[in-house]
């Protein structure tokens, strides 16, 4: 790219403008990147808490269902599971963190009362109820985790692109522009020096001509005086 420009003053001015703009953009993007990383750190803390809770809930839920399965038999548990009528639903809304759209997931019908579950109370045992309870809680944790982890993924994507842009400006565009600027400046200076040298040459030539003319005239005058 460096030698593609014509060394004219107009191009130099244009390049100087572009350098100024790129530097401003670079500063802004750098600030954006730092801001995003700070926001990300907050979310990361949150995500790690949610993760821990999630793993606890999962352990608890697994214990509950293993107990139900051991005491009531696999068939009873599956039967109860197949009878459920209400199903959890998710609605997603979005929130904006520094230009990154992250989802906010809201759920309905996750927690259910005993009579809303749809399986007969008499036909099943309390252990199945406990297992269902534990899994409902687990689902709530999962929804929370999904929200936080999606936010993290999106933030990470944004951080990556911003970082790439910052680096492209810093290590590619700006050095190229500066190289061009330098090239044009050097060329223009050289042209100036050439111009001065040319002027000097012309001046010397003119002076030599004038001197020759004067000498000729003097010779003529001398010749006329000698004749007299």
């Amino acid at each position, binding site marked *: 790219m460096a030698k593609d420009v014509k060394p004219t003053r107009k191009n130099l001015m244009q390049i100087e403008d572009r350098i100024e703009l790129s530097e401003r953009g670079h500063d802004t993007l750098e600030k954006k990147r730092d801001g995003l990383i700070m926001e990300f750190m907050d979310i990361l803390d949150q995500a790690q808490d949610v993760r821990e809770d999630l793993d606890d809930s999962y352990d608890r839920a697994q214990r509950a269902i293993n107990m139900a399965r051991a005491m009531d038999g696999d068939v009873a548990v599956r039967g109860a599971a197949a009878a459920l009528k209400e199903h959890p639903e998710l609605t997603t809304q979005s929130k904006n963190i520094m230009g990154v759209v992250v989802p906010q997931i809201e759920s309905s019908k996750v927690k259910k009362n005993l009579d809303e579950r749809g399986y007969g109370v008499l036909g099943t045992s309390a252990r199945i109820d406990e297992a269902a309870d534990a*899994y409902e809680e687990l689902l709530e944790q999962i929804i929370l985790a999904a929200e936080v982890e999606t936010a993290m993924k999106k933030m*990470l994507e944004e951080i990556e692109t911003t970082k790439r842009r910052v680096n492209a400006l810093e290590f590619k565009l700006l050095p190229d522009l500066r190289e061009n600027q330098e090239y044009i400046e050097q060329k223009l200076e050289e042209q100036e020096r050439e111009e001065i040298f040319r002027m000097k040459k012309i001046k010397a030539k003119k002076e030599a001509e004038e001197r020759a003319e004067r000498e000729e005239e003097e010779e003529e005058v001398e010749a006329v005086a000698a004749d007299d």
Partner: protein
Amino acid sequence: MSQEIAVVGAPDFTTGFRLAGVRRFAEVDDDEKDEQLDDAVSEMLADDDVGIVVMHDEDLNHLSRGVREDVETSVDPVLVTLGGGAGSSGLREQIKRAIGIDLMEE
């Protein structure tokens, strides 16, 4: 827009979620996971009605490379893995790449 939770995994894994009311699930037996899990997961990813996919962390190892990458980077639906400990591994890799340091080490 209302979406649902989907569970993919062994029958033992999904039963509990069915007890909590989840009705979208794909059951794949343990010895068929290598062949069938890819399809089951791809199907869930392509479904617009699914908002969250729940899987067991170990089941990710049964997926082929492409599907695994798809599911780990997918945002809609988003994958939540259980039983794996420190977050889904894909997220950890992504953090390393974007920030430059491993923030999730214990």
